[in-house]
């Protein structure tokens, strides 16, 4: 809310008027975010999650600096045990496992953030249209979400990726194009209830264009649930990419992905005798997904409108 166009009566000096202290008024505006931040940092696991997630982000950003070697560099030591030279050993082609592990964080984060960005956009637009216009538009969009929700996610993604060809970009696009129904439902529900509020009706009465009412007046109020859902979405997209790559239908070697680093462990000999090949990438997926899920839980708790404190 802006203070600039408020009229103050002249006979009362502004500084003596307790209720109109600008600092007080603005303080209230800011306090919602401060409140969320305060609540979030009370959730200990969420704080740990944020910390771990930030480390993974830094690892991805500075991979060339941190990694001890080149992730593609083929060494003459195949399947070497962990040693000082190769802290996590080498894989069956002789590449340094630790370097690959560090570079693979880029793939996971790219899929998580990229796919979620695509489907949050699609879901928000479709959900807002359905909720705002209602009637047959709503019915058509909601049936469409039902159709998309009926297909078992992993199976359709597998089939589509195998048709389009397995690559990082295709995985991001396919997950992004299929993941929107949950967001669309959430946004539609919020828009349905918010559009009946007086301030929205005031906007309509003032003749504001629809996109301004929807994007500036209504959507900022559904930001909480969208953000929470998107956070969990990043985690599940990372698992999806890892599963696809594990099954050989995802990111293709030589590019390293935590999922495809585990593929070889499907062979019993590698599973039994070379745990350094499959244990670290598996733990990295678990760590990344767990930390993001804790962040999502913290956000959900912090933004819960029913919460008193």
């Amino acid at each position, binding site marked *: 809310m802006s203070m600039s166009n408020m009229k103050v009566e002249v006979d009362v000096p502004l500084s003596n008027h307790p209720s109109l202290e600008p600092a007080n008024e603005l303080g209230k505006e800011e306090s919602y975010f401060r409140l969320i931040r305060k609540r979030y940092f009370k959730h200990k696991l969420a704080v740990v999650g944020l910390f771990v997630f930030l480390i993974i982000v830094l690892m991805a950003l500075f991979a060339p600096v941190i990694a001890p070697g080149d992730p593609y560099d083929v060494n003459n030591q195949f399947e070497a045990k962990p040693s000082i030279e190769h802290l996590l050993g080498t894989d069956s082609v002789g590449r340094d496992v630790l370097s690959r592990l560090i570079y693979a964080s880029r793939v996971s984060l790219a899929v998580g953030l990229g796919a979620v960005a695509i489907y949050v956009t699609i879901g928000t637009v479709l959900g807002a249209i359905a909720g705002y216009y209602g009637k047959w538009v709503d019915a058509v969009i909601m049936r469409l979400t039902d159709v998309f929700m*009926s*297909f078992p996610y992993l*199976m359709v993604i597998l*089939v589509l990726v195998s048709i389009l060809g397995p690559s990082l970009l295709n995985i991001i696009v396919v997950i992004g194009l299929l993941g929107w129904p949950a967001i669309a439902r959430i946004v539609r529900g919020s828009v349905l209830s918010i559009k009946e509020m007086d301030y929205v009706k005031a906007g309509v009465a003032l003749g504001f264009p629809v996109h301004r009412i929807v994007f500036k007046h209504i959507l900022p109020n559904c930001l909480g649930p969208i953000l929470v859902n998107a956070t969990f979405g990043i985690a599940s997209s990372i698992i999806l990419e890892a599963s696809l790559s594990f099954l050989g239908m995802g990111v293709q070697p030589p590019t390293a992905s935590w999922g495809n680093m585990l593929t070889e462990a499907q062979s019993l000999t590698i599973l039994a005798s070379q745990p350094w090949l499959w244990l670290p990438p*598996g733990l990295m997926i678990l760590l990344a997904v767990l930390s993001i*899920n804790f962040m999502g*839980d913290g956000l959900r708790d912090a933004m819960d409108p029913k919460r008193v404190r």
Partner: protein
Amino acid sequence: MFQYIVRRILIAIPVLLGVTIFNFLIIYMAPGNPVDMYINPDATEEDIQIKKEALGLNDPLYIQYFRWLGNILHGDFGISYTTYEPVLHIITERIGPTLLLMSVSLVVAYLIAIPIGIISATKQYSWTDYFTTTFSFLGVSIPPFFLGLGVMYVFAVVLQILPTGGMNTLGNEGGFLDTLFHLIMPVFVLSMGIAGSMVRYVRSSMLEVLGQDYLRTARAKGLREFVVTNKHALRNALIPIITIIGMDIPILIGGAVVTEQIFQWPGLGQLTIQSIGSRDYSVLMAINFSAAIVVLFSNLLTDIFYTVADPRIKYN
């Protein structure tokens, strides 16, 4: 309520049609041509055109769609691109093992999740609660293939007390105990993911019910705490859980793909991976289609069951 059920079924019809259209379009996009299956490699372009015309591949898209839909309604899912067997036959062979794996996992997951969820809710913010919350997050966050490899390493490689995969020991087909033995690890992996999210639902549903006035009444008339939680509260807390069962089915089907692949379980999930490997799109689409139908009907059933289970809800 009857009206609601009828309306719910009517709504499912356009969704079902949407599923078939989406499915058809994917097959249409898929590389490889059905003609290639029927014709020998040294056929001339003219022969191919004649065959195409005869199979109706030159017809407009919507006519091809309706013909395909008609075939499916007759149970004709076409012929496998690789084995030339009828697709329906291939799928019915694999459906049993998958249903066994999925139903046992679902039951196990609920047997784990419901008691844990109750304890977690009745002891909210205790150490037990934090522990179970962490456990449930672990269940949701651990990738099924990593958990699968982990238990396989521990129980099949190091301890050597469980078989590494398959449904039966070779040469010992049909033994009940033998199959049960092979079920342990895949069921553990599949049920973990579901139990993880289920604990959260049971917990929050219980918390909501535990705050209600009628429970205070029940305690006031001197009922034991055990009866109050497990009879009065649990019954009402479980009602919203019914809808979650419908949501778990797609997760189970997806999870089955990975789990069956790791443990060489001869079900639809493994067939999916094999068909992707051989680019057998007719089989893939039939699997996808039947999976979508299963999801659609389980959602329909849970919705209907929900109205029966909760008399408080009025539908108009």
